């Protein structure tokens, strides 16, 4: 008996250490960034242009750039991803080909982001002549998030009981009617949650926008979607590794990191709210 209890104790301790280490890492990162970054955060930092070779001033253009590029990403990846997921889950015949397609999509999410970046240069910047712009970068990020959006949307569709589909088909609904009126309304919260999480990941990416549109330093805001832009993650990368006065701009780098983290946290929070709201509607 004692041996059994001992084993259980050791097992539980091991699991506790695992979770403890993970939480510790998270806390250390957050503490480091908050403690060193919060000092520079003020209204000017958020709303002003960078000045004097980015050693002073704010990060306003980077915030705007990240915001704009995320809009393009969303416009590409949400409708396309949902469409693909609906087709794969509802229409495609269940067989080897569909399985292969699905597997390929899952694998695409493992492709390094720099590869997407180079792909974006070839296709959007050069082939489609979109140049280095918000559009090119947004589309590249959109492609990168597609596997996430598709997979999350498919999971959301799978969560809708088959009996909802059968029930409406048996009442004389066409397949499209059944999907539109009795499947989509109950899967949209899950789809949106997945899409927003995908977007928040895209918003923090550097590699895909590196060659497709992000600029080192622009003292003005982009005028259209075909202009170059500054972005938070790229700005952070510059400030922490490429700047001529790295020690001097370190606080700005921390401040940028903090803004980026808060922004992504906000997006995830929105995802939670959306899911909660829509789920409530569904239950009524």
């Amino acid at each position: 008996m004692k041996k059994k209890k001992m084993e259980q104790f050791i097992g539980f301790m091991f699991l506790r250490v695992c979770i403890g280490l993970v939480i510790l890492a998270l806390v250390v990162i957050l503490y480091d960034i908050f403690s060193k970054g919060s000092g520079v955060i003020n209204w000017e930092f958020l709303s002003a242009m960078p000045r004097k070779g980015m050693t002073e001033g704010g990060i306003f253009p980077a915030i705007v750039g990240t915001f704009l590029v995320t809009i393009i990403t969303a416009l590409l990846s949400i409708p396309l991803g949902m469409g693909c997921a609906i087709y794969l889950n509802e229409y495609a015949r269940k067989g080897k080909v569909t399985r292969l397609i699905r597997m390929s999509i899952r694998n695409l999410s493992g492709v390094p982001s720099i590869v997407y970046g180079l792909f974006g240069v070839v296709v959007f910047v050069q082939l489609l002549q979109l140049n280095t712009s918000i559009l090119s970068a947004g589309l590249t990020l959109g492609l990168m998030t597609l596997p996430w959006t598709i997979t999350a949307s498919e999971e959301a569709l799978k969560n809708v009981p088959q009996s909802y589909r059968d029930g409406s088909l048996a009442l004389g609904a066409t397949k499209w009617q059944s999907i539109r009126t009795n499947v989509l309304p109950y899967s949209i919260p899950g789809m949106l949650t997945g899409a927003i999480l995908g977007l928040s990941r895209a918003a923090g990416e550097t590699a895909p926008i590196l060659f497709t549109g992000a600029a080192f330093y622009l003292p003005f805001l982009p005028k259209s979607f075909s202009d170059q832009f500054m972005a938070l993650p790229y700005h952070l990368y510059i400030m922490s590794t490429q700047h001529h006065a790295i020690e001097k701009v370190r606080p700005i780098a921390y401040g940028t990191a903090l803004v980026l983290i808060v922004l992504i946290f906000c997006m995830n929070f929105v995802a939670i709210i959306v899911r909660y709201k829509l789920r409530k509607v569904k239950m009524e």
Partner: protein
Amino acid sequence: MNTMIKEKKSNQKNVEQEVISAELEENNMKVRVENFNFYYDTTQALKDINLEIKANSVVGIIGPSGCGKSTFLRCFNRMNDTISSIRYEGKIRIDEKNIFDDNLDVVDLRRNVGMVFQKSNPFPKSIFENIAYGLKINGIKDKNFIAQKVEESLKNAALWDEIKDRLHKSAFALSGGQQQRLCIARALAIEPEVLLLDEPASALDPIATAKIEELIHELKKKYTILIVTHNMQQAARVSDYTAFFMLGELIECDETNKIFTNPSKKITEDYVTGRFG
């Protein structure tokens, strides 16, 4: 649609009158199954079924688990079509029209052949919206007509009195038996002619079951009903005819009374008397 339903009603009346005046029983046959075979991939689930069903009768389909009862039932509204790699041979005629005809629209067929599933499946909508759903997807927009039809269907399904004060509450708040009657009401709202019931009372307590059975007695005045059941007493209580299936074959189909008292095959007798199954 409004007129469609009216037309159909008058057609139904004509059929009823014909039924009364017809001397030949054949004219009275609502459904005919002819040399029907059904395969899942390479497994044959139904073997050479021949069966005729009179209009306004209740046919109970009994047999041990896995004998093909549910598969058979799901052929009448072609719900099996949603499964890939199925195949059928032979014909099922409803009002003399083969439902597997290439030019038959399966959506129209399902409008005409209602189905209630084994596990009640209310949609996550209000009670009202559940019933109105079938009307709406069939293109009816007239709000008054929908409201009137919802009430009528709920009354026909003997549910109205219990829920009339909470029509706009979630259908999930109903009890199991009420949910199943809601599903019946939902099927009735679009005025089918044939009603398929797949073990509608298998998950219900005896009181709820009794209500459903009572309902079936009422419904056969207007509909032709096929009911799959595991419960032999239930088949004996509700059906006019009983079909006994085993291993994908229709062993015997006759008047319920005869099947339960004096079946022509030994194996049927063994099953209905509970010697196996």
